């Protein structure tokens, strides 16, 4: 349970980091360490080089524009959790973060690290899926942006090259009157989700749903965007019956089973979590965003 031998590099700038990853063989970037360090300790990964990104100031920070909240990849989860501006602009991000690990892990863990690690039960990728987040990466061939829909290519595998670094994650903002909810079922507080649901709703003055998003975490190998549910909601009156019927569509999702939780139980939870997320989102529609 000790990390394997490696060479350690701690670049002070992003361009140094890019150069190191472009030239070193079998190198791993180290962000907050809350996933990579256990994997090193258990020797699931055996890098020849560790490139520590913690000294790169330009990778941290939060910026809120008219249309989105942009978070530097190395921004600590804690910093986002306690940001009054984000609580105003994007309260679902704070709600999701309260389910991410524990205070001790959020103090170190980063936004970009969690997105890259892409654990299917992790909250931030699920939220990124619901909100159509955009991921900025940089590598030896320059910078590019990846829409979250194109980001996961498989179980814990993002569509970034081994020599690329995530620099920023941007979450598009919804209008102030939108309602939001992040629901999660886990064995204990702070555990990875067995199933989580992230939802946002916009309702017109007549009470009809004009815009909806729903994503599920923990159900499959990657976060799932429930387009079918969204389509079933649009144009409908926002009533408990509408939410119940739309959430019921989640029972058909292709779910994974494991030794603790069967696939059919995950499907059942997908329905329940979705229904709760939609109902709570509606209850917060139009209300002053508070958290």
């Amino acid at each position, binding site marked *: 349970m000790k990390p394997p031998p490696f*060479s350690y590099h701690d670049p002070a700038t992003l361009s140094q980091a890019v150069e190191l990853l472009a030239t070193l063989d079998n190198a791993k970037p180290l962000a907050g360490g809350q996933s990579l360090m*256990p994997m090193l300790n258990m020797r699931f990964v055996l890098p020849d080089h560790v490139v520590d990104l913690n000294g790169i100031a330009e990778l941290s920070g939060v910026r809120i524009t008219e249309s989105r909240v942009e978070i530097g990849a190395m921004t600590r989860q*804690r910093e986002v959790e306690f940001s009054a501006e984000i609580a105003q602009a994007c309260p679902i991000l704070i709600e999701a973060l309260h389910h991410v690990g524990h205070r001790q892990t959020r103090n170190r863990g980063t936004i970009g690290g969690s997105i890259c690690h892409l654990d299917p039960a992790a909250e931030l990728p699920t939220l990124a899926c619901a909100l159509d987040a955009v991921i900025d990466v940089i590598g030896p061939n320059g910078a590019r942006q990846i829409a979250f829909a194109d980001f996961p290519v498989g179980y814990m595998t993002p569509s970034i090259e081994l020599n690329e670094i995530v620099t920023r994650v941007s979450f598009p903002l919804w209008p102030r009157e939108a309602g939001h909810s992040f629901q999660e079922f886990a064995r204990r507080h702070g555990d990875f989700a067995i199933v989580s649901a992230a939802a946002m709703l916009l309702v017109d003055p007549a009470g009809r749903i004009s815009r909806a998003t729903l994503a599920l975490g923990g159900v499959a190998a990657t976060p799932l965007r429930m387009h079918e549910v969204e389509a079933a909601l649009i144009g409908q009156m926002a009533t408990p019956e509408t939410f119940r019927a739309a959430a019921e569509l989640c029972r058909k999702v292709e779910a994974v089973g494991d030794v603790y939780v069967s696939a059919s139980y995950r499907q059942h939870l997908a329905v329940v979590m979705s229904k709760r997320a939609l109902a709570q989102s509606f209850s917060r529609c139009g209300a002053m965003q508070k958290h």
Partner: protein
Amino acid sequence: MDSAVDTRTISLTVNGKAYSKAVSVRMTLADFLRHELRLTGTHVGCEHGVCGACTILFDGMSARSCLMLAVQANGHELTTVEGLANGDEMHPLQQALSEHHGLQCGFCTPGMLTTLVELLRDNPSPSADDVRIAISGNLCRCTGYEGIISATLDAAEKMRAGGVK
């Protein structure tokens, strides 16, 4: 910036005392504290971030020292359980834990203490639920947690009354 070597000399402050030492770059911070500085109060239970026994305060913020490399502490300020008491006088939280049966074997205690010291600093009047959530990342095999929670609430009250920070 960097040099691809297997050892580095790091300088850091632990419990107010400055240290400078050469370390292997792959040594965890937990092992560094225990083996190099002989501060064995920080316990190592799982070495993969699950049990919380290795929690320390890193620049005042709780962190799992098994999930950090010693080299990452270069230039930083750490507090371990050894740094909580004031000479022979226990921290109010330590005192309360002993009075409320908040520990039995003591294995989880260093991590509980560092985590809860941070909580009481950030939230001097926590509810029982706040305490439960704060220690949700710390496993205790002995106490059933209730003594730890009542001790924390008691210590919080005493600290508020006494103006202790």
